[in-house]
Structures are given as structure tokens and as C-alpha cells.
């Protein structure tokens, strides 16, 4: 499986090509991706673009990470 490197929260992360940004985050034990309005931890729920719980900034743009495949050199910042 070919691999690629992206930057997650300022750290380089090597992941298999072809996976989603969400899977890359989960692989690096980022289970909690954001805080809810009342400050609770939240992680991905639906895996298919419905719940918006997996959103994060990818190259500066707010996206649903479960819908975006990883690309070499991508920068991912959590909302946490």
C-alpha cells in the first residue's frame, strides 16, 4: 500500500494513500474532533456526510473529513 505524509495539528503523519482524512485522524487517536456548544467532546458519528460531527479545517477550509480523501502535503487542523 503506497503511503503519503500530511500535517495534522502541526505534526507530520504518515498514512496509507486512499483513506479518508477522518480515518487518518482516527488512526492518530484523534477520537475527539470538536467541542459541542456546551463544551462536550464529540467525534465522528455517521461516516457518510450526514452528521457534520467530523468537521475540521483541511488546508484552511472547513470540510467534513469523512468525505475527503488524504492528499500528500495536506494540512489538517482540529476545531478542538
Amino acid at each position, binding site marked *: 500500500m503506497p503511503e503519503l505524509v500530511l500535517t495534522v495539528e502541526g505534526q507530520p503523519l504518515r498514512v496509507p494513500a486512499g483513506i*479518508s482524512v477522518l480515518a487518518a485522524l482516527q488512526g492518530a487517536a484523534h477520537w475527539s474532533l470538536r467541542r459541542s456548544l456546551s463544551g462536550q467532546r464529540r467525534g465522528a458519528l455517521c*461516516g457518510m456526510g*450526514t452528521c457534520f460531527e467530523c468537521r475540521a479545517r483541511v488546508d484552511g477550509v472547513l470540510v467534513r473529513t469523512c468525505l475527503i480523501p488524504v492528499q500528500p502535503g495536506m494540512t489538517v487542523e482540529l476545531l478542538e
Partner: protein
Amino acid sequence: MTALETDLLIIGAGPAGLSAALSAAQGGAAVLLADLGPGPGGQIWRGAKASDGGESGTLLRGVQRQPNITALYGAQVALSERGPQGGHAVQFSTPQGPRRVLAQKIILASGATERFLPFPGWTLPGVVGAGGLQAMVKSGLDVRGARVLVAGSGPLLLAVAAGMRAAGAEVVGVAEQASPTRLLGFGLAAQRGGKVGEAAKLLWALRGVPYWPATYPVEASGGERLTQVELGGLTRRTLECDWLAAGFGLVPDTRLAALFGCALEGGAVKVGAWQQTSQPGIYAAGELTGIGGVDKARLEGSMAGYTATGQVERLRDLPTQLEQARHFQASLSRSFALRPSLRTLPAAGTLICRCEDVPHAALQACPSWTEAKLQTRCGMGTCQGRVCGPAAETLYGWTFTGVRPPLLPLPLADLLGE
């Protein structure tokens, strides 16, 4: 922004949309196939490739070989209006910015979403959908050695449990809320529907995994993420696990259809014998016309693809096959009807709306969706009621009435973009 022009726009590239594209293209029509995901396959065949074996590979190769099918991925419908020369003008939001499509006819094939039911602790990281966990694993989540508890309702739970085992997870059990009698009824219907082989394969894949009927999660707990789940109902026990994959059946995704003004019936898009909706030139196929699984989705897709492009001579025995698939669909919804006691799972403080953090107690005090929205902002957050809508339907008997364009929060630049 230059517009893409096509005879037929198909929205959704799952089994229904792919089958529709292939049938339509066989008659020579120009087809544009759009999906918000990064590739074709929909839910069941997420991440599938044309080089794969089996049904999905054959269909994908067929679609690839048709020069008159163009695919547009990462594209989610945002707005739709009448086209300048009749037909429809549909605006998609894509990572590269907005795309405008002019189409004479449209087939909607947007599939289904999962129904999530709230119980204490369901918002903890590690509590995910059943199909949701399946989707995450197909997209690269590594569950090797992880302990997974599958819960909720429907035949999907078995497919997910088998999928998790194949991916190397330890499936600690499957909790199905339906009663043993109802399940027996489903087993008999599956037998009549010729699904014995499929069922035998699943059962073999799941040998040794406990299956608890009339059982459901009553509480999930943990610190930063899930560590433990308490089950209630017929089998009461507390289990240690890393993932709770909980889904309470599927709900037709009718948002797109509502945006196009198509009539709904019983929570699904209403279609006629040729898959036509109440709107001229718009057809619907697959889960959004009623949950029935991949066979029904493929048959309806082919039907819509042929009829939308005037190839009625190619239908042959499709209507008869569809009739059988719909019988099976009816037995599915009878057998896996949700038990009323699930409505008592949320505690007063359990959040129902995850986007706006609205608790059960605040919603119990509301007489309707409209009131709930006004008083609590339930369903008005980022997901626009996609998660709490089906939950509130089960909990409070409310019908979600909230689809207003745009279908997703668009960056301002997309809306203004020319």
C-alpha cells in the same frame, strides 16, 4: 461559471444511480452522474473499484465503458431552479467551487441515512452509527483488535458485524431490538425471497458471535471516549468495548426530492410504476423511495434509466422482479418496527440535537417541530436536522418539515460565484 449540459442528470452514484446510468447510456443519452462522495459505490460499495470482482466490479466496468457517462464526484446539490430552456438548472457545491448543470431530466438516487436514537452517553466519541462504522472502516479506519458492540435494528447489523470481523475487530455481540417472533417472521420472508444463501453466508461469518434479540443499549459511558455499554431489555449486561456501532434502521434521504418539490408518502418519495415522481421529468430510484436494500435499488435504477430515456422496450421482466423486491421490503419494515419502549431511553438531560445541544426535557415540553425550532433551535444547527429529525420522529412522533434551499450551508462565495 460555465454550465455543464446533459440529457440526464443522476444524483447519487450508489447501486441505484449506477444502474440508472448504465441503462440510460445504453440508449445513447448523455448522462452526468454526480455524488457528494469521493467516488462511486454509494453505501454498500463505498470505495469499490472497476477492477473488483463481483456485482459491483461488473457494474462499474459497464459504466466506465460507456463514453457518454460523465462522473462528477465531491459534488453536493445546493440549489435547483428551472433551466433557461426548460429542464432544470442545478447548482452543486464542490471542493473546487460551485458547478452549474443544465439537464433535461433528472433521476434522484440519494439513498438513505441511518436513524440514530438518543440514550444517555450516545454523544461520546466512540459511539457511532452501525452503517457509520462500516463506512469508516471502508474508508480506512483500522479496527484490528478493537472490541465492537453492534446494536440497534435491522439486517444491516449483521452485515456490519460480519464486516467488522472481516476487518479484524473482535465483535463482542449484536443487540437487536426486535423480538424473537418478529425476527422469525423476517427469516421466513427472507427464505421465500430466495435469500437463504446470503443468510447462510452471514451466519457462517458470524459463528460464535452472541446475538441478543429484544435487547438495546441503555447507557454508554467512558471518560474522553467510550469504554463501556450497558444493555437492557431481554439481555441485561454491561460490556467493555471500544466502539458501539448503533443504528436503528435506515431512513429514506428525501431532502433532495423535497428541494425539487417531489411529493412524499410515508416518509419516502412517492413514485409511479415507471419510477416517475410528482414532478415532470424527475424520477427517483433506490432507498429514497422506501428501504429495500441493494436488489431493489438496482432494479429501480434500471427501470428509471430506461423510462427516463424512452427505452420502454428494454424493460422485459423488470416490473415483475420489482414486485418481488417490494414484497421483501414490506416484510423488512414489519419485522424491524421499533418498539415503543425505545422512546423512554433518553434521560431528561440526554441531548437530542447534537448541533445545538438541546436536551430531551426541553423538547418534551414542545408540541411540534415548529415550536421546538422556535423555542430551542433544535434541528437548526449545522446538520440541519439530518440526525435529530429521524430521532424526533421516533421519540415525539413529529414529522420533519425543514428543507429550505440551500441544502447545505454554502460559503457565501459559492452562492454569489459566477
